[in-house]
């Protein structure tokens, strides 16, 4: 599903965020990306939804080499990759319903399909009763769930989550984790970047440890099988 070959990402200011990453993630896998700040977790994930291009090496997503992907095809790749951000990135001027529905609208889905799928995603995340509220009226945990609902509404093959529990208390973090595991159990490949080793330890999932832009370790199963 996701392959990275000798991926190097250097920024114009000279910082090398990734230094020769080799990684293969299979369809339906759940992978934790862990490591200290600046280890390259976010950069690696941005490559997956092609918000960045590698300086050298290759990134192949679902059989598509992202460096060779024409600019006009990028939106179509992004529709198959749901992204959950630590800072939510919700459109403040749109209601919760419209934030989620928008991700479907952009695919050209008809109104009926948009209504049905949006309602289903909001229901799954327990947000149905908040559909008409605006992001500013929600708590951090609720915003994160809206963000997940938006990422899921298209039934993406891959879900990329960057510190989705970073702003949440332990109880809410566990809630979000359970939702992500549930989504993974339905067949979606999930990559989750986190600092929170305590959380990682609670789930028996593959853990890729990044340090200074390199893979330090790649453990198939880690932690207790809480899921």
């Amino acid at each position, binding site marked *: 599903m996701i392959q990275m070959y000798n991926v190097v990402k250097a920024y114009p200011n000279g910082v090398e965020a990734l230094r020769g990453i080799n990684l293969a993630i299979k369809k339906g896998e759940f992978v934790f990306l862990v490591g200290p700040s600046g280890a390259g977790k976010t950069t690696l994930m941005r490559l997956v939804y092609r918000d960045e291009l590698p300086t050298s090496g290759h990134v192949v997503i679902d059989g598509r080499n992202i460096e060779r992907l024409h600019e006009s095809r990028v*939106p*179509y790749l*992004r529709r198959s990759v749901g*992204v959950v951000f630590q800072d939510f990135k919700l*459109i403040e*001027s749109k209601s919760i319903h419209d934030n989620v529905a928008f991700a479907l609208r*952009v695919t*050209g889905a008809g109104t009926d399909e948009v209504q049905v799928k949006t309602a289903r995603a909001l229901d799954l995340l327990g947000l149905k009763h908040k559909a008409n509220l605006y992001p500013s009226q929600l708590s951090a945990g609720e915003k994160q769930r809206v963000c997940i609902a938006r990422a899921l509404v298209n039934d993406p093959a891959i879900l990329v989550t960057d510190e989705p529990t970073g702003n949440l208390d332990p109880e809410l973090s566990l809630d979000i984790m359970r939702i992500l595991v549930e989504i993974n159990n339905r067949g979606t490949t999930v990559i989750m970047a986190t600092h929170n080793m305590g959380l990682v330890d609670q789930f028996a999932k593959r853990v890729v440890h990044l340090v200074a832009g390199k893979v330090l370790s790649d453990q198939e199963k880690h932690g207790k099988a809480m899921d």
Partner: protein
Amino acid sequence: MEFVETVSFHSREALAGLRRSKVMAAATITSIALSLLVLGSFILFLKNANLFLGRLHDQYKLIVYLKDGVDTESVTMLKRRFEADPAIQTVTYVSREEALKLVLSDLGEKAWILKTIEKNPLPDSFEIKVAETADVPDLVRRLEADRAVGSVSSGQEWVTNILRCISFTRCVGFVLVVVLGLASLLIVANTIWLTVYARRDEISIMRLVGATNWFIRTPFLIEGLLAGVAGALLSFALLVVGYRFFLGQIQGLSLGVTGFVGWPELRRLGVQLFLMGGVLGFLGSLVSLRRLSV
């Protein structure tokens, strides 16, 4: 999504965009209105100047004075020849008696001046309206070559000046309209840029969820178009009010100047302003979006 659904979605998004940022929408509409008001006033001035110069041009006549003693037969033949000439539009024969009557009626109460003269001093003449003013020098040369013709009063210098004036006004007008148009585009594009820039986060989120550039652009372009048309409406209303006030002032001065550009021409200008407003808003949005690589 079907076409109608897409259009309706984007239009709703555009209206919501305008409603959300009322101050910026007002700024965009005002900048478009003011730009078009300047441009429209200038075009109206040009139209009036052209109309005035055109009328002067239409009143232009050549007068061919015949020599003394030219007989009726020669006059008739000369008239036929003039009528057949493609450079001549109309020919009117004015006999020396008719010419005198005209002078007397022009003089009115001062007609006694001519009573001291025993003999009619005026020659027979032809009044000629030319088809093309540019042909005047050539025509004058041909007319003067005729043996029956004494002299030709062409006012050539006057004609040349009018023609020069018309082409100068048109040239300068065209250049100024283009310059003003570009200046308006810059002002409008910068105002719209502020609106688009304020929503750059929203645009980046749209991108991240897989929106194509056209999907992101369309509501902004509709917004630009609507703001452009609203600005044009405002500028046209101001222009009509201002023009009527100006005409009122001119008539109040009793200068005897009449024949200004009227309502049909003003309506045509209105349509032009609407088109320009739409194009300004649309292009302004497009240019601003391009700055965000959308």
